[in-house]
């Protein structure tokens, strides 16, 4: 059982990174769609759906990897190495921002599904949805770059 769990850890890390990136790209695509004068509702719905699904899957795969492996095997190596701040600053920040992403992505999805038809007539609604998409994308980009910093500290 334990050996099976350890064997799937690289796959979990790969899934976390790649699916997380698909989430970032989808929320970015949603943002770009919302910034256009005439947004295609079908495109917005697709991007919002893919962003929500991707962030949720990246959340579970990353969370599982963190609980089962990172805390026990990786964190002590980083803290004892030359770059302990990679954990104490970047991973600690990532842990907290981690909670926001799926919630923001689901909020965006619900907004597009429920209020998408009103985007062309209510410019404030569209602008504020774009703002939420921008915040979601910015957090996603930070998470990806922080992941590179943390991985680079494992020596």
């Amino acid at each position: 059982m334990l050996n099976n769990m350890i064997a799937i850890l690289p796959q979990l890390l790969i899934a976390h990174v790649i699916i997380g990136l698909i989430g970032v790209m989808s929320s970015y695509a949603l943002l770009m769609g919302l910034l256009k004068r005439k947004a295609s509702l079908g495109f917005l719905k697709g991007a919002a759906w893919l962003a929500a699904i991707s962030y949720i899957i990246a959340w579970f795969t990353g969370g599982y990897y963190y609980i089962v492996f990172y805390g026990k095997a990786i964190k002590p190596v980083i803290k004892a190495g030359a770059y302990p701040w990679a954990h104490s600053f970047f991973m600690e920040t990532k842990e907290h921002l981690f909670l926001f992403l799926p919630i923001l992505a689901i909020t965006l999805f619900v907004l597009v599904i429920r209020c998408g038809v009103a985007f062309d007539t209510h410019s404030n609604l569209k602008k504020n949805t774009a703002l939420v998409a921008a915040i979601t994308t910015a957090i996603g980009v930070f998470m990806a770059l922080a992941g590179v910093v943390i991985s680079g500290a494992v020596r």
Partner: protein
Amino acid sequence: MDWHTFLIITHIIGTVFGVGGATFAEVFYLKSIKDGDIDSTESSFLKTTYFILRIGIILLVLSGFGLLILNRLEGATQYLYNPRLWAKLTLTLVIVVNAILLEIRLIPIWLGFSLSFTSWYAALVLGLWRGASAAGYVTIMLWYIIAVFVVAFILGAIKKWYVE
């Protein structure tokens, strides 16, 4: 074919799409504005070029992070603190933020086009020029900023010569 080869090939295809797309976006734009009006055919060519650019950046980001995961899993983590890598990540960020700024018209066209064009070519140069790591992140970025303004000047001169 192993994962490393597959990811490198995908990364090169992404770069080719991006650099080619950025070049042709500039060429088609100049040809389009020559008569003072962008007609539907010209608009269609520009849209297709931007679509190829987007495919390029998707391939580049996914394959780039794929290579980083491979480094992490193979224990070659020292590469993840390489200044050339962080310069390339910065350029990728510049490309995507620049696209937002151009969309909401918060950046002058001459600067936006130069940023896109220079960033793609700089990413290509950094990808091939391994020795650039020795220069350090700040030096690489300073040269990049100088290049953005030099390219803006050259593109402006070409526009003046060809269009006006």
